[in-house]
């Protein structure tokens, strides 16, 4: 590879990474945490325990819907999985539906607990908040969020490609990490995090783009279809709604229907049930397969006759394009992954998050030593250094604040779920201001320490103030909630370790190789004022 080519990619890599670095950090961090979306939701709703028997819940859901909406146009039941608990029922009444609007939950939405009874749990988004944040962002129309994220993802893709091209010693430096050498160490760390998990980073970025590809590059679709609507009609076939006859007929037993579906799929699991014209002679039960059953994200559906329970039809993804795309979405979302594999995804995601963070810090470390007057850095340096603190240290603190809000906000607060989200972003706002007004070193230490303390305090709070502390959840074998508490402890410890490292860190003492031309020891004296300023 020619020197010029490699060199040309170096600058491209730096700028494509820097300009969107803080948003990428948000995307990577929230995306990684989203691999535990269902577990976090379970943790956020301590009122609901783990589901032991799906049949119990399904029967309970049907009983509830029969009671409250016997003459509805359609029912929908979202069934629990190995990781999520309880069922969510909604229905569409006859006539004009009462629309909830986005992020206003459906007013017919009811939670059925593991015992089959209607459950009341605190209003919370749970893990879904982090999940949606990483591609929809927040406080803006969803489509804007997706455009921003897509833009950043494309920059990320370019950063990956240019990064690999520009990394001269990608094999020679594979196992190299030299701590305690200032800028050299940051570069080593950034390289290690990037190269060792390179397959993941490339996969997650590309598949992320593919997941929303029709928004970002609609031209492949518009080339062949008169409109996007025509394309969706072919790719997501909708069956015509069934006309109710008005004659009542008892509905087939849902337990038997679920068993049938299990058999047709050869041991698959139902994730979603839609019932059209329940209780009518002409009714239909459509059972959709659980996303975690397969790598490929797609629609595996079986349609049953609602009255007799006989299988009417069955669909599965057929076309190579749908399977390819579904496979890529499946890889990105990781819903197929069993526990150990899920941990590997999560750790790789954290490596990606740290890769972005070390890249941002490296930009500062590299330029700090070239500052003519470290007490008065130029605007770009000052801005990047402060934003780094507010983003890298501030965002985890804000996310922890969300979890605290989940615990502390009164259960009957109106719009409680919204307020949990506001708590996160209000905290983030405070950390951003803090990052700009405090001396930089203090700001890092204060924000990181706060995060460490708050993270470790959460499981302690659970132990002291709820009946779902670690001893209880471990004894009950509740892996989701116990695992979350333990992970919070581990993350808190990690942040504490980072605080210690920052406290011992002396920026500017970059032990570079002595220049070939003998220089006076004067540079050492000049460094002292820089150190003094930073250690304020």
């Amino acid at each position, binding site marked *: 590879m020619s020197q010029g080519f490699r060199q040309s990619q170096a600058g491209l890599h730096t700028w494509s990474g820097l300009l969107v670095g803080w948003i990428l950090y948000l995307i990577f961090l929230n995306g990684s945490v989203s691999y535990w979306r269902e577990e976090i939701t379970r943790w956020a709703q301590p009122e609901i325990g783990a589901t032991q028997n799906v049949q119990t819940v399904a029967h309970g859901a049907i009983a509830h819907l029969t009671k409250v909406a016997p003459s509805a146009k359609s029912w929908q039941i979202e069934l629990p999985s190995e990781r999520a608990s309880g069922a969510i029922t909604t229905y569409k009444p006859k006539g004009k539906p009462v629309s909830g609007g986005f992020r206003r939950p459906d007013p017919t939405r009811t939670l059925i607990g593991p015992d089959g009874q209607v459950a009341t749990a605190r209003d919370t988004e749970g893990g879904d908040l982090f999940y949606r944040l990483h591609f929809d962002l927040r406080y803006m129309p969803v489509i804007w969020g997706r455009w921003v994220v897509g833009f950043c993802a494309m920059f990320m893709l370019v950063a990956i490609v240019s990064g690999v091209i520009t990394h001269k010693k990608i094999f020679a430096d594979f196992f190299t990490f030299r701590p305690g050498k200032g800028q050299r160490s940051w570069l080593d760390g950034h390289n290690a995090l990037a190269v060792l998990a390179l*397959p*993941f980073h490339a996969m997650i970025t590309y598949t992320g783009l593919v997941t929303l590809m029709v928004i970002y590059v609609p031209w492949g679709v518009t080339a062949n279809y008169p409109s996007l609507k025509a394309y969706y009609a072919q790719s997501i076939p909708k069956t015509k709604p069934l006309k109710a006859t008005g004659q009542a007929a008892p509905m087939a037993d849902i337990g038997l229907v679920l068993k049938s579906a299990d058999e047709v799929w050869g041991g698959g699991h139902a994730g979603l049930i839609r019932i059209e014209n329940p209780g009518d002679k002409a009714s239909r039960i459509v059972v959709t397969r659980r996303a975690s059953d397969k790598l490929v994200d797609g629609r595996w559906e079986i349609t049953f006759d609602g009255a007799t329970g006989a299988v009417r039809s069955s669909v599965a993804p057929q076309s190579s394009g749908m399977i390819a795309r579904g496979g890529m979405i499946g890889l990105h979302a990781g819903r197929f992954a069993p526990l150990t594999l899920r941990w590997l995804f999560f750790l790789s995601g954290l490596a990606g998050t740290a890769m972005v963070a070390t890249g941002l810090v490296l930009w500062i470390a590299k330029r700090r030593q070239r500052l003519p007057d470290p007490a008065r850095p130029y605007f770009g340096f000052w801005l990047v250094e402060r934003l780094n603190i507010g983003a890298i240290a501030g965002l985890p603190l804000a996310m922890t604040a969300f979890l605290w809000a989940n615990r502390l906000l009164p259960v009957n607060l109106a719009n409680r779920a919204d307020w949990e989200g506001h708590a996160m972003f209000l905290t983030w706002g405070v950390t951003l201001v803090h990052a700009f007004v405090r001396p930089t070193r203090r700001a890092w230490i204060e924000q990181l320490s706060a995060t460490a303390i708050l993270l470790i305090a959460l499981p302690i709070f659970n132990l002291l103030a709820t009946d779902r502390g670690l001893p209880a959840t471990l004894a009950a074998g509740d892996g989701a909630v116990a695992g979350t508490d333990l992970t919070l402890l581990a993350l808190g410890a990690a942040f504490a370790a980072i605080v210690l490292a920052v406290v011992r860190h002396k920026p500017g003492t970059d032990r570079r190789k002595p220049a070939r031309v003998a220089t006076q020891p004067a540079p050492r004296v000049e460094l002292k004022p820089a150190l003094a300023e930073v250690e304020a």
Partner: protein
Amino acid sequence: MILLSALLNLGGFFALCLAMDRHHLTLQGRKPTSGRRWRLRGFGALALTASAATAIRGWGLTNGIIGWIGLLTLGAAIVLLGLTYRPTRAPPRRFDL
């Protein structure tokens, strides 16, 4: 089976690491002979392949390939950290950045 896959991964990367001049020098005090280098590389490649086979055995084909790639990251990371922070007779390395 998955644990075996992880261990094979670790061993494979350790061998590949040793096969590199600079790391062999650090760990053994001298550069490897040409013969040793190729033996280490051969063993490393074999171990990583075996790791893939056991991962597929334990997880199935698709999950196995995906899981193996994840274990590659983990194995390489452990070797890197072990190499960097290995206990030496010299005074302990300060946790400096």
